[in-house]
């Protein structure tokens, strides 16, 4: 069972993951349906030959998944996200994401954590680097504890 996510328990430098996701044709098709984005590069052919995953596939979720693999992170909210695309990744591959708690901070009584992560393909080649700023919940710290 995941630990309760507590700001005070989060340790800057703490490693998170790895988490793995198989990029199936079904998952990519669901992405295209949900985002109404039927780009042929995702479903048919791309300059790489076969279809590739949408660049944002799982992108904004990696920080949450890394946090959620260890903690009960159901009340979290994404407030900032940054991604650097390094290469396309073909549909059918399994992606692996590892990360670290890069920072944590309190702003106007709300608690945030910063997760940096790298996603790699099956050969171990990095195809995306990400940074996510995540609000732990909408609950504010007591006024005398800010």
């Amino acid at each position: 069972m995941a630990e309760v996510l507590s700001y005070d328990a989060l340790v800057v430098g703490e490693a998170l993951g790895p988490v793995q996701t198989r990029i199936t044709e079904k998952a990519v098709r669901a992405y295209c349906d949900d985002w109404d984005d039927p780009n042929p590069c995702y479903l048919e052919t791309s300059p790489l030959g076969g279809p590739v995953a949408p660049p944002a596939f799982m992108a904004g979720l990696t920080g949450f998944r890394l946090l959620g693999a260890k903690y009960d992170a159901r009340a979290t909210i994404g407030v900032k996200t940054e991604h650097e695309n390094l290469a396309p990744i073909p549909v059918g591959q399994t992606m692996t994401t590892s990360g670290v708690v890069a920072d944590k901070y309190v702003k106007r009584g709300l608690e945030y954590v910063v997760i940096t992560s790298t996603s790699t393909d099956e050969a171990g080649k990095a195809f995306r680097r990400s940074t996510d700023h995540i609000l732990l919940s909408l609950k504010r710290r007591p006024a005398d504890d800010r």
Partner: protein
Amino acid sequence: MTVDLAGLRVGDAIPGTRKTIYQRALAESQFSKDSIHNDDYTRTKGYPGALVSAYVLAGYMSELMVNLFGWSWFSTGRIGLTFIGKGVQQGDPVICGGRVKALEDGPDGRRVVVEIWMDKEDGGRPVIGEASAIWAPPA
């Protein structure tokens, strides 16, 4: 669709997209009483309803960049987004747009930097950010 970037100038608007926000999990799942995806809870916190996840909004902004930069986006694209205000709710019609902020020549070619945003059609700008990619090899 890929835009011909050769004629772009700083200040030019980029082609936008119009979308109706959809998050499958909000349509198919129930969320705990302290979840930002719970309508009742988010209303007690001053939001108009359950918040659509940031990763969903990032997907819409990424599509805008694929349309602009094409295949280059997959290997040279950088994007930074901030989610602000009252967020976005399921079914909201939105317009994603942007404007060229800078053209930077470097060893890998010319990097086009764009200021980007998502506007709700009924008002408000819940997503702001910046993105860039290389569009041409060095001369």
